[in-house]
């Protein structure tokens, strides 16, 4: 399978199954995408292009068969948990209108994680991590800074506990920033491998969605806190926003966040019920694509000028990247990734929390058997009909399980709007690398 598309003035051909990517002449592009259109090219040039296509195919760089992975390999990897989304607070000091977590409560009681349950969650992760050395714990909520003493104590506990298992826990935290003072920033800077700072962009856009429970906008406080934090941050961080039908010009929000001095930016499509006025719909796709094109221009300009600017979804490593097993199996929700509530309940990921159909057990259970392991382990690209003939399958890995379930009530049926936007982002990401390759 190949995918041919044009990005700026470049003709790009992706050999889907090998991962090879080529820039080709106009003639070869037409030969590959529609051979009936090459009659006006000189015959000797057509013959040369045809020979080169044959040479690429023989070298395993074009029209490659998909033969790397068998379904048996994927379904025989062993149940190992390596990543945990730890909900330290099912409560929040914001009441964002689009929140998928019921403004922090996740359709349950408002509660905070106790230190004891938190320790049991870490013990659970260590005990079920098999031979994996690198483990991850993301302090999530609600708003984790509402329970910061427990976060601090759990980092200390994890640092000690990992020694006896010979593991390396990477801590991350996702915060809305309202309580991010200098003291907390200092601790986070010292202990967290990655930090996600939630803000949507321009003040009017942010304050339409990200409100205090009393209805006040949060932009002014949050920007100040995030700028102070980012100025001192030595490790990785992302400012992460959400765009909705109300700000389809979201490239402006990315630009705004960059103008505030933030270098690593991620802005994501809203995940919400399709009945909401701000939900993204099919009719918005042309405008969304236009915005990604604008962001690609911005990304390229910054890269060519050597300026620090990173848009999460345009980061792609064409020289290596993840192995093919990772690309096939996806995010690991329900298999190697779990979410834990303040009560210690286990779910496949943060987006399934509160849904009894997906309750896996509790970190306090003496024995854990993941009853949904097979269901999630088998939700890979070779099983999903929509993925089989999609050129992007080795880049998106079949998409988000939660999006599939929430949009189609089926883990195996990807969220169509998500697929469309993902393909566009990938074309931009690969196109950017193509342009940079020609400049090198």
């Amino acid at each position, binding site marked *: 399978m190949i995918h041919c598309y044009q990005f700026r003035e470049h003709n790009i051909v992706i050999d889907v199954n090998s991962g090879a990517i080529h*820039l080709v002449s106009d003639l070869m592009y037409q030969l590959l995408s529609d051979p009936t259109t090459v009659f006006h090219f000189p015959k000797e040039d057509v013959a040369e292009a045809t020979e080169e296509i044959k040479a690429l195919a023989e070298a395993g760089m074009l029209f490659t068969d998909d033969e790397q992975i068998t379904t048996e390999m994927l379904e025989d990897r062993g149940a190992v948990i390596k*990543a945990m989304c730890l909900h330290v607070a099912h409560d929040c000091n914001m009441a964002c209108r689009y929140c998928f977590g019921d403004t922090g409560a996740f359709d349950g009681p408002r509660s905070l994680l106790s230190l004891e349950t938190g320790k049991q969650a870490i013990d659970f992760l260590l005990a079920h991590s098999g031979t994996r050395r690198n483990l991850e714990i993301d302090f999530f909520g609600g708003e984790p800074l509402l329970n910061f003493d427990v976060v601090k104590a759990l980092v200390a506990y994890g640092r000690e506990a990992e020694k006896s298992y010979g593991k390396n826990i*990477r801590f991350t935290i*996702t915060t809305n920033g309202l309580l991010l003072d200098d003291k907390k920033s200092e601790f986070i800077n010292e202990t967290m491998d990655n930090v996600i700072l939630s803000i949507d962009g321009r003040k009017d856009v942010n304050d339409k969605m990200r409100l205090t429970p009393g209805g006040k906008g949060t932009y002014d406080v949050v920007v100040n806190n995030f700028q102070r934090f980012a100025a001192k941050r030595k490790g990785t961080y992302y400012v992460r926003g959400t765009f909705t039908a109300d700000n389809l010009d979201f490239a402006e929000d990315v630009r705004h966040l960059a103008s505030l001095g933030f270098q690593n930016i991620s802005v994501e499509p809203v995940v919400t019920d399709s009945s909401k006025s701000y939900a993204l719909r099919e009719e918005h796709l042309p405008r969304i694509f236009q915005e990604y094109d604008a962001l690609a221009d911005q990304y390229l300009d910054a890269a060519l000028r050597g300026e620090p600017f990173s848009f999460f979804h345009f980061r792609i490593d064409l020289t290596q990247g993840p192995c093919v*097993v990772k690309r096939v199996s996806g995010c690991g929700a329900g298999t190697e990734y779990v979410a834990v509530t303040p009560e210690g309940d286990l779910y496949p990921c943060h987006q399934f929390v509160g849904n009894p159909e997906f309750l896996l057990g509790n970190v306090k259970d003496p024995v854990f058997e993941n009853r949904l392991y097979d269901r999630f382990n088998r939700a890979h690209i070779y099983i999903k009909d929509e993925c089989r003939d999609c050129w992007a399958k080795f880049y998106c890995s079949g998409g988000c399980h939660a999006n599939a379930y929430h949009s189609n009530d089926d883990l195996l049926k990807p969220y169509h709007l998500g697929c469309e936007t993902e393909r566009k982002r990938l074309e931009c990401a690969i196109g950017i690398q193509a342009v940079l390759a020609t400049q090198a």
Partner: protein
Amino acid sequence: MKELKQVKTIAQPTLKVTAEKGCGECQTSCQSACKTSCTVANQECENIRRR
């Protein structure tokens, strides 16, 4: 393969040469920044043997 005049290859066939069971030491994609969507290809490989 002889020099090609109508093609410039910008990415070699990485999927082909990395066929293996996967060491699993890399970051879980959803932990990095998105939390609501899934791009896996921008994750870094942490298998030292592949570098």
